[in-house]
């Protein structure tokens, strides 16, 4: 397919869209699906057909709209209204929604798009999520999809594309924050007959689901980003390494790849040029460490997902010892808009060293839990209290945990800090992939630290000793404290051991594993002291509080 043919399809789609006067978009991402949004979709569609409105009113299944706490979500245009929590088993309510298409929305379920949760967002990665049907490639083409790719191939040199990404200041969204453009230019310059592009969709971080939503809602966006990257660095084969725990994302990805191949937008001779790029989905099998790039590459090769020391970096010697470009889902999803609107436009959003937007999964003790995309530098307080709608039951805020098992807990005193890579690091946490777990006063920080150490202890691959033994020891110490058997000296040991593991572990998993412990020790030391001195847990979460003090159960 050439650029002209693509634009023809897009034009046709837009013409079709003009005939539609009313739109009802129903979210069919996994969150809403588990609340039976598929039934809502079917019933609304049958009702519209029954009334003979299907010429002017379109009921469409779309991806994630973000506010998962209020699912199943429906958006109705031109009413400019969201509907929350529509009951899938009540034809009366759903009929009323259709009845009111031209009038006022049904008040009990209506939700204004003006509320901060929607209004304070800036959507780049998620711009199509909730707008297009993830299983129809024409929908994606209709909103300008695949045009940047074909445009690059037809009119821009490889180096020009790399330079554009460098100019944008985009940094890796998987957690590390390595400048994407730099990585691309390394792979582009590396010598080798065969090069690979891999998309890291092994979202192992518990409490985060950004990648899942993007893959489920807008899979073509990720594929296009990968294809542009492949063109820029000279890769001809790509893999998407996706968790097996996300069956819906895998299914939609496979559908998307097939559609794109059929249209000549992936596979051989893309855009009728001599550029070829084939993509395959590879399933992960539940190993957190496979998010680390060298471990991921080992897993794609069919080996145990164990990291190896770097250098050599994958950019020079990755998959099958060939130069390999590895980026996260969200990073790739940022590429198409950077190419079409320019790197300077992207760089104008965000803060000094952190450009663009970031998608966060806002979960835990917060009213509006869900998926949000905000400009870098937004204040934590705005995230929790404005977009998040505050904490349920008016309880007191205690901490927000970012970066998953590699991150830390950020206490109240940092609420007015802007969120970007540097400031999170200075507060003892990391940006991570974007999980943001809000905890209120009922959370026990020793328990939280123990939870994460249990996780990393279990997920440690066992290759290097600092991580294998260190995480087990750290967990053991925390266990002792939570059982009310701790001693004051244990706190020192925790700190010393944590620092040692951080310094000496082989890969990112080990180096960051002590973060949850060190950050809680730093900001919530009194809770640890309380567990040791009084042998009780003020929040009633730990074993010591469930039996009389001093006689902790085993």
């Amino acid at each position, binding site marked *: 397919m050439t650029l002209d043919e693509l634009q023809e399809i897009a034009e046709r789609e837009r013409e079709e869209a003009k005939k539609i006067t009313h739109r009802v978009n129903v979210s069919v991402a*996994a*969150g809403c*699906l*588990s*609340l039976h949004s598929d039934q809502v979709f079917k019933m609304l569609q049958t009702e519209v057909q029954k009334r003979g409105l299907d010429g002017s009113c379109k009921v469409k299944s779309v991806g994630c709209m973000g506010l*998962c*706490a209020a*699912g199943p979500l429906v958006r109705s245009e031109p009413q400019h209204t969201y509907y929350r929590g529509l009951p899938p088993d009540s034809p009366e309510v759903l009929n009323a929604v259709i009845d009111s298409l031209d009038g006022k929305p049904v008040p009990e379920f209506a939700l204004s798009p003006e509320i901060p949760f929607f209004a304070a967002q800036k959507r780049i990665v998620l711009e199509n999520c909730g707008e297009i049907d993830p299983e129809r490639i024409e929908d994606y083409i209709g909103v300008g999809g695949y045009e940047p790719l074909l445009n690059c191939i037809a009119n821009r040199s490889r180096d020009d594309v790399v330079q554009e990404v460098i100019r944008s200041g985009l940094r890796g969204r998987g957690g590390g924050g390595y400048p994407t453009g730099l990585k691309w230019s390394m792979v582009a310059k590396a010598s080798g007959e065969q090069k690979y592009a891999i998309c890291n969709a092994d*979202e*192992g*971080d*518990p*409490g*985060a*689901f950004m990648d*899942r939503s993007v893959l489920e809602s807008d899979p073509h966006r990720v594929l296009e980003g990968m294809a542009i990257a492949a063109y820029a660095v000279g890769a001809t084969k790509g893999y998407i390494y996706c968790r*097996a*725990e*996300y069956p819906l994302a895998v299914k939609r990805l496979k559908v998307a790849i097939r559609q794109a191949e059929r249209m000549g937008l992936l596979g051989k001779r893309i855009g009728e040029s001599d550029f070829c790029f084939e993509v395959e989905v*590879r*399933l*992960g*099998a*539940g*190993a*957190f460490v496979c998010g680390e790039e060298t471990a991921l590459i080992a*897993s*794609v*090769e*069919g*080996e*145990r*997902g164990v990291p190896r020391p770097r250098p050599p970096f994958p950019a020079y010697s990755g998959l099958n010892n060939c130069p390999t470009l590895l980026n996260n889902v969200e990073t790739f999803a940022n590429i198409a808009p950077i190419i079409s609107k320019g790197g300077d436009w992207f760089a104008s959003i965000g803060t000094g060293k952190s450009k663009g937007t970031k998608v966060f*999964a*806002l*979960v*835990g*003790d917060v009213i509006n*839990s*869900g*998926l949000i995309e905000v400009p870098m530098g937004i204040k934590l307080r705005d995230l929790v209290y404005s977009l998040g709608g505050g904490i349920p039951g008016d309880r007191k805020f205690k901490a927000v*945990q970012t970066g*998953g098992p590699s991150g830390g807990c950020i206490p109240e005193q940092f609420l007015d800090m802007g969120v970007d890579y540097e400031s999170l690091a200075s507060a003892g946490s990391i940006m991570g992939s974007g*999980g943001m*777990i809000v*905890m209120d006063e009922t*959370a026990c920080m020793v328990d*939280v630290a123990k*939870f*994460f150490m249990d*996780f990393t202890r279990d997920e440690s*691959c066992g290759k290097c000793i600092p991580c294998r033994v260190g995480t087990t020891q750290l967990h053991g110490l925390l266990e002792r404290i939570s059982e009310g058997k701790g001693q004051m000296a244990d706190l020192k040991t925790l700190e010393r051991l944590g620092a040692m593991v951080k310094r000496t572990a082989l890969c990112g998993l080990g180096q960051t594993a002590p973060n949850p412990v060190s950050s809680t020790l730093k900001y919530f030391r009194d809770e640890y002291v309380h567990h040791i001195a009084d042998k009780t847990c003020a929040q009633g979460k730990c074993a010591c509080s469930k039996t009389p003090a001093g006689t902790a159960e085993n």
Partner: protein
Amino acid sequence: MRRHGYKASALIEVLHTVQESFGFLDDVSLRFVASSLRIPMSKVFGVATYYHFFSMKPPGEHNCVVCMGTGCYVKGAGDLMKMIEEIARVKAGETTPDGKVSIVAARCIGSCSLAPAVVFDGEVIPRAQPGAVRDQLRRWIGHDAG
């Protein structure tokens, strides 16, 4: 395996297919995979046991997955798991002796905004309530009420 061209790099894909077809990986199927892909049995076994997703034990008739991701944990998945273990009288990762129900702790199923999440036979139950979970388990296990 033919689909993957009998390449050694397809090992994980093949194991996924085996598990999908038979529910778990047993010795016979692992040996078959090893000889077909021409890789040592030790490596096949190593890979199969390394990843959490692969199970070497036959699954129960029903499957109860409790999400133990951070979002769910903060929302009380730990207590939910304790209750389930008490009702089923087995630990997470085990199957009841009568083979009725397997209890599984998942890392994170990505339904964090609907925490705590429990999955009964592939169907996600958002904001799982202890009462509803207890009822479903009892229906499967067939305990006397109480």
